[in-house]
């Protein structure tokens, strides 16, 4: 501890002579890449919209290259000449000349580009787009997107091996109400630029980084198995989440899921993955636990090939077969990258603004590289650290960020009600820009964020000592500050398309198509009014279920509603359209039964702009 503190102090002093990041913001490193010669580490800093270039000989930041808003992923061409960075909130990729470190081009992508890779010939860029659920195929000669390949929901991370591209997804695919979540690994044949396979990940919600061995025969993806279909009556015994990995490839034969948790110690929110060049070990980060796990690959493959392999993922005593050690690193560790010889592992500690350097022979942290940033830790930043920490739940199993992935949602419906089982099923919703939308909880039971995040969370979710006093205040400060992602369906000018205009007219209409008046309280714009499109009041709109204890629903805000399917308080409507075509037979949730299909489409087009 002490040694670590001294190191950080020394490195902070070293940083005094280095380029400073944008004042007033934290770098928040999320992704890493090495130059092919291993001399430089490129660090994507999502908080300061830049790439920090670290000279590994001196462990110092030598340049900061400005990129687009909220950069998320990075890839380096095989020849090391070009660096590509996704700008998640700008829907672009910044191309950087690795020699001059100058941004040379800005390439357009789908919505919220995240992970990316360059094909082996350095001619094509594959970019996973989280919101548009697809992969942009960009011709690097022209800089144009030449194809858009459909991926799973929340396409976010990419790895390449020869002519195979593997894409993983932060959200589960939309499925039937209250059925097991399904994710996939989207496999792309880069020679033909087509999706070649979609191996299923059953009962998996979020999948994060994916890595392939150098020989391409073994793949590992970090994943989260939610337990959202059973009542959260307690947390012990992996009752809330299964932190795990998907192992796939020729070495395994198919896809096998294996656990990372133990009986009383969880490896919360696995995120980054790296495989040693000699295929002896794999490394994973736990972004909630603040650790790196070191896995013996021979043992991991043996478990993946065991006759009982399909039954292992729910056995908390299995990880001891292949997890050699868990090494503490910084707060909210995200991506990791190994040096070419595998001797050093670099870990991006997002909420410490540092890079941990691990000696992989000794399995210990030997240096910590500071990335600069605000010299003080603000209440908002403290709150963000709490939000992403799993230390407050029983045995460290999960934190706020498990359900609100990257401060959004998880696409799941949960059985959380403490007083009964199968009661009051709740759809998890996005928490961007929610500060002024009280009350909270689907039935409006929590008047403010302190109630929402305080004792209730401690008693019924975490089942352990949760956020209190100053911690709770910091957490609320952070939650209230979570910004709103740009709306992709609304023109920058605010001008609406003809379809959106027609939809707006339907949203605001006061009369049915037959000319009869719609009662005020049954107009869309009555309940969904104001800046956030909620009057912040309860209403019975006929969407309650027999398992709900009350038919009254808190009018939800509609901000960025297009992103957070499924819909209704319990997630029973798979699409916006189903809200009216399936769940509004008596026109109790607004008047919609006189609308034609085209008119509903227009209404949806308008709602997407909110």
């Amino acid at each position, binding site marked *: 501890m002490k040694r670590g503190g001294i190191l950080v102090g020394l490195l902070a002093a070293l940083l005094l002579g280095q380029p400073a990041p944008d004042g007033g913001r934290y770098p928040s490193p999320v992704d890493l890449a090495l130059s092919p010669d291993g001399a430089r580490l490129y660090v994507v800093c999502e908080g300061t919209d830049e790439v920090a270039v670290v000279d590994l000989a001196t462990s110092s930041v030598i340049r900061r290259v400005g990129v687009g808003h909220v950069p998320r992923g990075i890839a380096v061409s095989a020849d090391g000449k070009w660096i590509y960075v996704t700008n998640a909130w700008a829907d672009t990729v910044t191309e950087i000349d690795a020699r001059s470190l100058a941004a040379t081009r800005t390439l357009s992508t789908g919505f919220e580009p995240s992970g990316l890779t360059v094909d082996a010939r350095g001619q094509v860029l594959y970019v996973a787009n989280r919101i548009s659920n697809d992969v942009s195929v960009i011709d690097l000669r022209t800089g144009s997107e030449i194809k858009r390949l459909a991926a799973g929901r929340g396409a976010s991370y990419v790895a390449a091996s020869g002519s195979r591209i593997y894409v993983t997804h932060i959200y589960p695919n939309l499925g039937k109400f209250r059925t097991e979540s399904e994710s996939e690994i989207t496999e792309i044949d880069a020679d033909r630029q087509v999706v070649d396979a979609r191996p299923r990940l059953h*009962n998996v919600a979020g999948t994060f980084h994916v890595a392939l061995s150098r020989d391409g025969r073994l793949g590992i993806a970090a994943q989260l198995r939610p337990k959202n*279909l059973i009542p959260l009556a307690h947390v012990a015994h992996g009752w809330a989440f299964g932190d795990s990995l998907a192992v796939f490839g020729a070495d395994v034969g198919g896809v096998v899921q294996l*656990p990372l948790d133990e009986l*009383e*110690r969880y490896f919360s929110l696995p995120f980054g993955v790296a495989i040693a060049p000699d295929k002896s070990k794999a490394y994973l980060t736990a972004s909630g636990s603040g650790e790196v796990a070191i896995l013996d690959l021979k043992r991991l493959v043996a478990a993946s090939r065991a006759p009982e392999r399909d039954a292992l993922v729910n056995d908390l005593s299995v990880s001891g077969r292949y997890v050699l050690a868990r090494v503490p690193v910084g707060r909210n560790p995200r991506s990791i990258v190994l040096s070419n010889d595998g001797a050093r592992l670099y870990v991006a500690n997002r909420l410490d603004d540092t890079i941990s350097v691990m000696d992989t022979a000794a399995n210990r942290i030997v240096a910590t590289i500071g990335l600069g940033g605000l010299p003080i830790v603000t209440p908002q930043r403290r709150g963000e650290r709490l939000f992403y920490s799993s230390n407050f739940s029983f045995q460290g199993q999960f934190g706020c960020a498990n359900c609100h992935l990257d401060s959004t949602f998880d696409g799941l419906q949960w059985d959380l009600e403490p007083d009964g089982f199968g009661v009051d099923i709740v759809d998890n919703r996005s928490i961007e820009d929610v500060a002024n939308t009280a009350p909270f909880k689907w039935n409006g039971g929590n008047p403010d964020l302190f109630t929402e995040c305080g004792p209730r969370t401690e008693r019924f979710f975490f089942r352990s000592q949760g956020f209190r006093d100053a911690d709770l205040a910091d957490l609320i400060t952070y939650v209230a500050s979570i910004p709103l992602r740009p709306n992709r369906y609304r023109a920058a000018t605010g001008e609406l398309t003809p379809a959106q205009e027609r939809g707006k007219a339907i949203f605001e209409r006061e009369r049915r198509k037959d000319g009869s008046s719609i009662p005020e309280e049954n107009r869309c714009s009555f309940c969904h009014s104001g800046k956030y499109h909620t009057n912040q009041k309860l209403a019975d709109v006929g969407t309650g279920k027999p398992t709900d204890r009350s038919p009254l629903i808190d009018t939800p805000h509609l901000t960025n509603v297009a992103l957070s399917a499924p819909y209704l308080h319990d997630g029973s409507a798979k699409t916006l359209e189903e809200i009216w075509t399936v769940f509004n037979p008596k026109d109790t949730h607004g008047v919609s039964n006189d609308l034609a299909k085209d008119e509903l489409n227009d209404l949806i087009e308008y709602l997407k702009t909110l």
Partner: protein
Amino acid sequence: MGFAALALGAAFSATGGNSEAGLNYVFTETTRYEPKAWLEGRDRFPSGATLKLVLGETRRALAPGFSASADAAVSDDGSRVLFAGKQTPSDHWQVWEIDIRGGPARPITHCDADCIRPLYLPTNEIVYTRDSSSIEIAGKPLTFAPGRYLTDDVLRDGRILFEADRGTQRRELFTVYPDGSGVEALRCDHGSDRGEARQIGSGDSIFHSGNRLARFTSASAVETEVAQPEGTVIGPIAEVSPGVWLVSLRGRAGHLGLFRWNAAQRQTVPLEASGVQPVIVATRTPPRQFPSALVASRTAGNLLCLNSRISRTPMDGAAVRTVRVYAPEGRLGETTVESDGSFYIQVPADRPLRIELADAAGQTVRAEQGWFWMRPSEQRVCVGCHTGPERAPENRVPAILLKTIVPVKMLEVQQP
């Protein structure tokens, strides 16, 4: 005595604890300790017991004036000690608290039976064992089934670790939340007679298994080996630093000596000529508080089993058709098990309960050996029938909850 300047382990901070000059600890000075005497209602210290406090090179009686004192537990700030004491030989054991610096002891309990083995909870409450028949906090029981109980430790996750004999003449380790809910075996490998458990800095629990020390580690569902000193270890260990423990060893002549045991060096250094129950005096991070969700005014709890047809031990799960619940006075009810093995029942709170699975002919497929209990408004869930704590649930809506959200009530003993 050869005190060394010992580094403090992860479990203990360097402030307020052991000085550079030596080791700070409390132990029970006694010539005879019978760790299982409580199972038979006998005194564990038939030849007397006196707590001694060792602060570096100084030592003194912790609670002078007491006829007997034992079972020390040090507060997380290292400033106070709980102990079981008798002011006169004819008194019952009671729980007392005293400052490390000295001064008068403060009575915590006024039991009409022996109250022993006190432990601090992070809420400033004190849990202890009453008459070997229940575990209590401030006179309110946490245990509601027949058997013998003895508090061992408070785990860092907030659970109370205890040993119990539930009628098998063999001790096993259990945990319970501080509100009495969620009682369960720490592991389900059910090996030798287990007791005298303490959690160490790594999170492992070290305990006696038969006549040897053994370990439960988080990664394993079964007990694992522990390097141990020559001789017979008696009573609980105390961790000084990783791999360095204070242990009590029984010598050939039958007397108890307290030693510092270094597992890596396989070295045993004598500390005290006759002593057991060592406890390090140091500050340490308090365990996590457990926020109870119980509603005291309720009289029943709900139990949901996801799949009663699976077990970690051989069972003809496919034959299971019904589940029966018993109280000591008789059967509380019987209901159908769903096609996926799930069932959902409501049972009376704070009473001994036992579950039995039966086939289509009414023949018993599996019957629980011991009793368990549920607390008022407790919402309890289990993966299967004795699946063990290593089994995480499969994520699937139980068939019973697709059929109904109302539990089958089994609240009164049925008349034959």
